[in-house]
């Protein structure tokens, strides 16, 4: 196995669940990667410590998402609601994995996303963060049926990914090659195309990386669009991915935001799932 095909050695795809479901696109991305790479799909439900603390406060009230009614919420209420949410997420994952004959696992941890997720995803692999966040008010919870259970056509199975490109942040590093390898497999599975966001120090570097990747792709009968990033900063990456209308972004950069608010802002700006290469 070559270094550049190291994605095959990845242990698992971690998909993070919390009180806000990750959204359809994130789930399809996680399942698509697991199916494309033939690796384990690991669900991690994070019981947010901030929520636990909030429920212990004396005056705390919850505003219903669907009913728009304010009601008290205590620690016991929250515990039950989290358990139900975790169970619902587990069933969904089980159903999706079974439909595509994937290996899968599911765990519940208490902590703060995304730190708890990154801590859990030690070792080579992928972590998928969804875009829902506040957006679950608009998008709803988990899809009623996981991809592949009812839909048969590839375009229908990965509806969120189909016809939109899979974007890869590529800088020539070993992680970047793993990201490219995974993105290529995902694009082939979802029946879509690739966009490489190349982070290069100069034009020469960009061309070298482009030629190298192009040869690699040609060997696999694939092709891609190449964009040269103005900088490696998150804002430029996000802007480029958004401009391309990416269905998902595979992020190989080292500077992964570990705090919730920063990650939330990043995902909100990006508008698509973020796949971290660990």
């Amino acid at each position, binding site marked *: 196995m070559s270094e550049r095909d190291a994605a095959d050695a990845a242990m698992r795809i971690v998909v993070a669940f*919390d*009180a*806000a479901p990750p959204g359809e696109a994130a789930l399809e991305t996680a399942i698509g990667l697991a199916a494309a790479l033939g690796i384990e799909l690991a669900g991690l439900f994070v019981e*947010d*410590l*901030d*929520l636990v*603390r*909030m429920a*212990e*406060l*004396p*005056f*705390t*009230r*919850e*505003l*219903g*998402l669907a009913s*728009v009614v*304010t009601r008290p*919420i205590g620690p016991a209420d*929250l515990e039950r*609601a*989290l358990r*139900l*949410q975790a169970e619902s997420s587990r069933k969904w994952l089980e159903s999706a994995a079974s439909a595509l004959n994937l290996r899968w696992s599911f765990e519940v941890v208490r902590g*703060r996303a995304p730190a708890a997720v990154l801590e859990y995803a030690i070792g080579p692999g992928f972590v998928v963060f969804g875009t829902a*966040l*506040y*957006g*679950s*008010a*608009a*998008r709803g919870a988990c899809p009623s049926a996981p991809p592949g259970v009812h839909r*048969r056509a590839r*375009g229908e199975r990965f509806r969120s990914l189909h*016809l939109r490109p899979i974007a890869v942040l590529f800088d020539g590093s070993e992680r970047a090659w793993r990201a490219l390898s995974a993105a290529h497999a995902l694009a082939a599975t979802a029946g879509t195309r690739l966009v490489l966001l190349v982070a290069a120090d100069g034009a020469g570097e960009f061309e070298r990386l482009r030629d190298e990747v192009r040869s690699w792709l040609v060997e696999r009968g694939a092709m891609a669009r190449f964009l040269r990033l103005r900088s490696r900063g998150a804002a430029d990456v996000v802007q480029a991915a958004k401009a391309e*209308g990416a269905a998902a972004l595979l992020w190989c950069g080292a500077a992964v935001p570990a*705090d919730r*608010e920063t990650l939330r802002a990043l995902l*909100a700006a990006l*508008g698509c799932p973020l796949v971290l290469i660990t």
Partner: protein
Amino acid sequence: MASVTGLKPEALYRRCDPARLGFENTAELSAAAQLFGQPRATDSIEFGIGIERAGFNLFVMGPAGTGKRTLVKDRIVRKAERRAPCSDWVYVNNFSEPSRPAAIELPAGRGAALRNDMLQLVEELRTAIPAVFESDEYRTRAGQIEAEFIERHEKAFTELGEEAARERIGLLRTPAGFTFAPLKDREVISSEDFAALPEQEKKRIEERIVALQSKLENILRGVVRWRKEQRERVKQLNREMTLFAVGHHVAELNERYRGLPKVLSYLDAVQQDVIENAEDFMRGREGQGGGPAALSAEAPPFRRYHVNLMVDHDAGNGTPIVSEDHPTCQNLIGRVDHVSQFGALVTDFTLVKPGALHRANGGHLLIDAYKLLTQPFAWEALKRALSTRQIRIESLAEMYSLVSTVSLAPEPIPLDVKVVLFGDRLIYYLLHAYDPDFRELFKVVADFEERFDRTPENDSLLAQLVATIARERKLAAFDCHAVARVIEHSSRLAGDARKLSADIQAVSDLLCEADHWAREAGRDRVAAADVERAIGAQRRRADRLRERMHEAILRGTVLIDTAGARVGQINGLSVLQLGEHLFAEPTRITATTRLGEGRVIDVQREVELGGAIHSKGVLILSAFLAARFSTKRPHALSASLVFEQTYGLVEGDSASLAELCALLSSLAEAPIGQALAVTGSVNQLGEVQAIGAVNEKIEGFFDICSARGLSGGQGVLIPAANAQDLMLRSDVVAAVAEGRFHVYPVSHVDQAIELLTGMPAGEPDAAGGFPPATVNGRVARRLRDLSALRQQQQAAGAPPRRRGRGRDRAGS
């Protein structure tokens, strides 16, 4: 009274001379013969078919086998060829009111075209609409609407979150909604730290959270509104895209059906419905497998665009002629079928089925009246359709509350049809008498004759008919002798030597059988012998009962004398009809006479085995006796008449002559020759009147006499009025020719009694008296004696006779 002599052999059978037919065999006859001998019925049919007014429907009546349907169809076809073709009719979905399917009229042949066009349209839309919705344009525009919504929504939450963060309050997502909580070091404050805060700070935080919750509430309510707006925009986008997909297809159809406004309205409604339900076409791409499950799962969304072709006319076929052999209500006016779906009965406009009225609309509908009247509700349904001049399909089950399922009420279709009912005369006259609607709706009657005149022209036409049938049925050609025999048999079927039977079916059957026997004999021409054999075979097949009765007479089980002479005993002749087979057997009639009150007792009537006409005959002969012999003194006679060894109903008055002769014999004590049999009815004046089945009666007595050996003195007395009806079997004619059997035509009872007793009947003198040595003289004397005896009894004060319920008692 003039003496009676037996008929000559040539008077017993009217032969058809083959030489006069003018051909050797029917292969020489080329022209197909039309039905002949029915000018009245033909005129009526042509009038009924020709007149185009409401209510002028036809009732064609007459016996079976006379070619009624053939003639009617022939005349209709002639007329239909000159008329323009009729319209096609289809039922389509009524999109605004699906329970009332809409009917559309189209020019002949275009109903099927519309059906195929709609199938094609649906097939094209099943590809075109999903393709439009999978296009980059649609995805982009739908994505823009979605993104706009999300951005609007996220912006509101982000701004609220930032506002909260500025006051060190966090916006948190819970499994079921949102909440706010105070922060400390970017994390939610612990309950211990919160408890340690000054009361004023706690109060400030709580107030701020309440204010933020209020804002969040507004945002969430706004999200619902935005979502609705987004859906409307997506819906509008879907309409635009669907219109793009469907518009040019429908425009093409609009061009094709220009000039048919109802079709254009329908196509417009289809377009609107497709636009409103485009998602059906997206779902319709799934589950394309075969089998019933796929049919039921896939079909419903697109069935509503199908076209139910109710009536399909070929543009070149003229007006329709429909014969409905099973005229149930539903087969006439159509029906709405249901299918079971998940345990419930469901239906739609595609399950509306046409009836005979739909198929015959614009043309002619032929129905058997008896079948129609014996089908529940069918007659009423037909009348309703003819009266309202429209076909309204109504569910009988729903009409009579047999099921509670809500069914369809298809739009009525205008009706323009000429109905021809076929039936016998009884049905016609019953309907005419008891159903006022019938008179309004069936104003034309065509009455077919059972028989028509046997003229040389009609003989030739019948020969042509034989040739036509032989050609149509692919029979061997008939030679002129065979045709002559067929004509003679037709005359026999008519029961009159001067007539031919109109029963074409019987002639046709005879031809087929004769052809069979000719082929059996290895001949390629049918000869007279084959016809004769066929007639004999027909008779033999139906002759079982006659043979058994014949056998009973010959064995003496049934007492019939054919020789000797007996007082008060005579051979009558009874006719029996079993199916179409008619035969006769002699019956012994006996009479006894005694003192009484002037009544003749008919034993058959007393035991209720005598019909009304038979009783009438007995009363007439009683009146004859009283009028002739007892004009000046009381009629002091009691007599009994019996049909011996009969165990069924005796009907008809054809034995009244025999009964009268038996009575006269008894009164005159003049023996009647048993070698003779008698048939005929009499009136009060003693005149002999015609009866039916004279041929069968003569042959019936001849067969018994022949079996016992013809003596030369045997014969049958028949009414002189029947002499021209005779078409007797060849063996009877031969026996008469050889003087071994006789047929005597009599016109008065005195002629009959002279033949039967061998004594003169006796003419009355000026005073009304009869010579003593005559039958009438003896009868007069006997009645005088009885009258005197009665007067003596009354003078002696004899007690009055006991009466039993107003009738004399026999033997008293």
